[in-house]
């Protein structure tokens, strides 16, 4: 079965509001990355976490390998935040491959 379950699959926010995305893992992962796919289709690196939390502007992410989840919080959403967000967990094996969630389509409305 899927090793990375991402939710929600779609999310609509009004400008200035916030919400959280979540990824649950079926096994212990070494690290997690969060990406945003922009309008040109490029994957933009948001966070890399091996543990704990990180914050960058209006985004904050947390990763708990023991509890097998990661979250991405967005506050004060802006129109340019719209896009597809992916979490990707670093597999516990030696290849450092990423196992991707299926993505969250975020739409920020005026």
């Amino acid at each position: 079965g899927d090793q990375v379950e991402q939710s929600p699959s779609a999310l609509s926010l009004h400008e200035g509001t916030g919400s959280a995305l979540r990824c649950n893992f079926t096994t212990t992962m070494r690290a997690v990355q969060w990406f945003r796919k922009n309008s040109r289709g490029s994957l933009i690196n948001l966070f890399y976490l091996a543990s704990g939390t990180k914050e960058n502007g209006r985004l904050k992410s947390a990763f708990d390998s023991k509890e097998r989840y990661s979250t991405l919080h967005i506050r004060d959403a802006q129109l340019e935040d719209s896009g597809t967000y992916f979490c990707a967990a670093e597999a516990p094996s030696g290849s450092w491959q990423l196992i991707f969630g299926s993505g969250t389509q975020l739409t920020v409305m005026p």
Partner: protein
Amino acid sequence: EAAVTQSPRNKVAVTGGKVTLSCNQTNNHNNMYWYRQDTGHGLRLIHYSYGAGSTEKGDIPDGYKASRPSQENFSLILELATPSQTSVYFCASGEGTGGARAEQFFGPGTRLTVL
């Protein structure tokens, strides 16, 4: 800043034809990866490499070959393209040695259509 480039950015191929997708990274990273992304799904790993001369199978290697002739370059080869290989292909690089930080950086993607 990580720099991974891919060529071509768009490709239309015919069924049964040979397709080569190229990736170049200027980060001196050891590891390189090829993923594909289909609509409504996350990326899935096709092949990866630990360094020049190395190629390893990922989760969905059938129908694909890979080549890593140098630290900087990693190619994905479709010897006999099929319509099911229509997808967007992403290349990535990362350090990934020992206990080092293994953050991956992605290229802009190649949109492949097989008719």
